[in-house]
């Protein structure tokens, strides 16, 4: 059985890299916006806040991968702006995504 590409819906894959100490706040923000699901991975790396090697609580990054509609992606990025201004290191980038079964993720 082959999937018909035409059945897929256009959306965005929003990827956010944050320090693990910001994780609870991000989850709260997502909930508030009505995002029903997300995937998160522990992430190690290096950057301008130093090596994040997962050794201790403040030195671990988390990568969120969230599929959503384009409008929702814009709203999310807007609502993170205030935290970025405060100085939180929040790295956001998006991809165009073709999503199968968009109803599964709530849009």
């Amino acid at each position, binding site marked *: 059985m082959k999937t018909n590409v035409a059945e897929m819906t256009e959306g965005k894959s929003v990827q956010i890299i944050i*320090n693990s*100490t910001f994780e609870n706040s991000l989850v709260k923000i997502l909930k508030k916006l009505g995002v029903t699901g997300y995937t998160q991975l522990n992430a190690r790396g290096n950057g301008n806040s*130093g*090596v994040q090697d997962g050794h*201790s*609580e403040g*030195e671990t990054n988390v990568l969120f991968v969230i599929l959503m509609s384009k409008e929702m992606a814009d709203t999310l990025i807007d609502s993170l702006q205030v935290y970025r201004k405060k100085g939180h*290191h929040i790295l956001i980038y998006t991809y165009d995504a073709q999503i199968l079964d968009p109803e599964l993720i709530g849009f």
Partner: protein
Amino acid sequence: MGLDSLLIPAVMFFALGVIAKLIKSDLKFPEGMTKGIGLYLLLAIGLKGGEALAQADFQLAVESIIWAAILGFMLPVIGYGLLRFRNKVNAFDAAAISAHYGSVSAATFLTAVAFLEVSGVSYESYPIVMMVIMESPAIIVGLLIAAFVRKRMAAEQGGETVKTEWGPLLHEAFTNGSVVVLLGALVIGAVASPESMAKVTPFTKEIFMGVLCLFLLDMGIEAAKKLDALKKAGVTLIAFGVIMPLIGGTIGMVIGATMLGFSLGGTFLLAILSASASYIAVPPAMRYGVPEANPSYYLTLSLGITFPFNVVVGIPLFYQMSIWYIGV
């Protein structure tokens, strides 16, 4: 004396960790292991402290708690003043760094305990309770200073004030894992019957020093990792990493001996507590609460400079100073 303090297995394992990193060995702890060992150490020292506390003098215990809170609030203020004195360190970095120095390092404390046990010097259980109390106040002081700086900067620049959300921050300060395990173990140790405590002794006492070796081996690796970042920190910060423990330790020693009337062992332990800087509970709290500060500074300082300084220089130094001050 002198070299004796360095010839404790735990301290030598710390050196081994540093060497392993310097010779680029692939020695590495599995992920999460340090956290696990850290929990064990806090649990074991908490139980031990609770057991001793059950027989302790209630009034002195209360006085110790009050002094621990005073130290916890006072040390970061001194640290902040010291860092801002020459205006070389930005205010947010200074707030975050000084919070680390008001809080405590359990590993430094335990190494000092190992030192006393090897030297055959007895000590009171009060400093263990003081360690629990001293975890949190400095976090609050650091956050308060940062909030104050934020307000002042907003007023100067005429911009809108960024509000500090106190709820989650205070929750974090008082409910962080170290505080819960230590406090819980203290209560359990105090309440449990001596017979039932004897059953846990092999786990909490007999293997304790061995586990501490393992923990310090990892600390050595981590401290050596920070050496690279030292170059970026600059002379002012590095000097602070050495001067602050000397000031804190001296204040702790005077309070221990003069205000609380501790014996040599207890006075020395309080000096080491006051000299030590946190690297477990405070960094995540500052990371979230003072995002304006550069996180690579505070960990580099507390783990890369102050911890090794205390283990190698601070412990023998404050031991000798305590002998001299008390006049044993």
